[in-house]
């Protein structure tokens, strides 16, 4: 399947979870395909990075569920920041752990899971929909009932996958990509390299097989598919490109120029434009 074919399964108004963390192993080829589609009014659920920035800048996000949006080496995601300051994105701001338990509840088909995180903080104030529950046991503790973050679709990027949808991570951190897939009704996995199932053994032991085919609807081979975020050990973050991205976000003119240069064509055109950018910088 191609990224465009995967995105053709998405519809406006859906709740879409995006894997990775900050500016790390984001399914950017899928996000770029989403930008080429007409899908809008999305609820995006993400440990936010430039996926959030690009979709917000393109006006595709009605509601964002997140604990942060960052580019890591550049602390603040510039498009997210601008959109919030203009007041044109609805935000459900959760704690990082609440977010994980919301996905876990969805993966386990539970309405909520109880956590301590959130009590006493303004997370409870700015999300008046959040409720607490009282433990039915002797301790009687009052805890936050984090609602399930059930996703219509999940988009994740891993190092290797087979054609059936099993996927392997080779970096040090799985992030929460398996959880995103399990919390979703449909999941699309892009990968650096498609391998046959026997090829997984080359990368590492069975514990590196993070995502199982039973919750995956489509596999997309997308070399460089996390660019400009990191996808270790295949590649590190493209810091020069990320800096150019952040600089271009500073004003509408610069951003239009950046979008014209890098985001107006298909994925091959993107790769060619990035190669051109890299050669120009060298």
């Amino acid at each position, binding site marked *: 399947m191609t990224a465009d074919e995967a995105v053709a399964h998405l519809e406006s108004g859906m709740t879409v979870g995006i894997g990775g963390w900050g500016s790390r192993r984001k399914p950017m080829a899928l996000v770029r395909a989403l930008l080429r589609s007409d899908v809008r009014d999305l609820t995006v659920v993400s440990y936010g990075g430039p996926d959030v920035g690009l979709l917000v800048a393109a006006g595709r996000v009605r509601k964002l569920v997140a*604990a942060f949006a960052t580019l890591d080496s550049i602390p*603040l995601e510039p498009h*997210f920041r601008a959109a919030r300051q203009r007041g044109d994105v609805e935000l459900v701001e959760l704690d*990082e752990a609440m977010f994980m338990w919301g996905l876990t509840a969805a993966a386990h088909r539970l309405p909520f899971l109880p956590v*301590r995180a959130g009590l006493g*903080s303004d997370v409870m*104030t700015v999300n008046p929909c959040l409720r607490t529950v009282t433990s039915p046991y002797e301790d009687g*503790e009052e805890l936050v009932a984090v609602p399930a973050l059930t996703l219509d679709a999940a988009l994740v990027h891993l190092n290797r996958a087979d054609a059936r949808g099993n996927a392997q991570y080779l970096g040090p*951190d799985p992030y929460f990509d398996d959880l995103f897939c399990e919390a979703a009704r449909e999941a699309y996995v892009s990968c650096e390299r498609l391998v046959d199932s026997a090829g997984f053994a080359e990368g590492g032991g069975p514990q590196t097989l993070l995502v199982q085919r039973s919750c995956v609807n489509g596999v997309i081979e997308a070399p460089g598919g996390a660019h400009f975020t990191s996808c270790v050990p295949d590649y590190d973050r493209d810091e020069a490109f990320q800096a150019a991205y952040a600089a271009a976000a500073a004003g509408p003119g610069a951003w239009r120029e950046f979008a014209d240069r890098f985001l107006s064509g298909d994925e091959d055109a993107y790769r060619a434009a990035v190669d051109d950018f890299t050669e120009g910088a060298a």
Partner: protein
Amino acid sequence: MSGGRGVSAGRAEVCVVACAEAWRGDGEVLASPMGVVPTIGARLARLTFAPDLLLTDGEALLMADVPALGARPRAVEGWLPFRRHLAVVAGGRRHVMMGAAQLDRHGNQNISCVGDWHRPDRQLLGVRGAPANTLNNPTSYWIPRHSPRVLVEKVDMVSGVGYDRAAAAGPSATRFHRIPRVVTDLAVLDFETPDRTMRVRSLHPGVTAAELQAATGFALEVPRDVPRTRPPSAEELRLIREVIDPDGLRAREVRG
């Protein structure tokens, strides 16, 4: 400002030691420093008086050795990806030192946004893990520039929970809530008062009470007999300068 035997410590190095001291006596817990000076402080603590501390490489690995800033560990003693990190937070075997865009006298911290949350004047990071941190494991703060814009009467969005808000939220919120220390470029502060409001624990060498008050956005009494922050020893200075931070990154965060 003397480190002994004629070795003079800069302000950044005093701050490193003050941060390191936050982890003294913690035992076998994960030290999670945010920022350069706390990172040097945690490594200094591990190399000196807190050898049992666990340290991460800033990503998913627990380091068996103590490399210089920016260098990779030569030996790894554990795996701590984000999801396991969240379990360590909830389990309490961790002492984090976070930053703060705003901090009030009760220890409420804000890293989310400045101004009205619905349409902020300045969007910052978002709450990240601050709500979970403050309710589950000891949470200290590091403020590299002590000013009335950071030490405020009231924070705009409570990300990290302070003593008053925890108390109001009830026993589940106070059960594991603790803010051991606030280290700034001017002083060390804590909440060891009957009403759990901020007090001055020590003034850094060369800082006056008037200077501290002028830099604080709420009334913060400095007792006449308040001690001076302990300066680094000669051995601590050597470890900071030659082993942990040979490139002098600490000076980018705190001048002097």
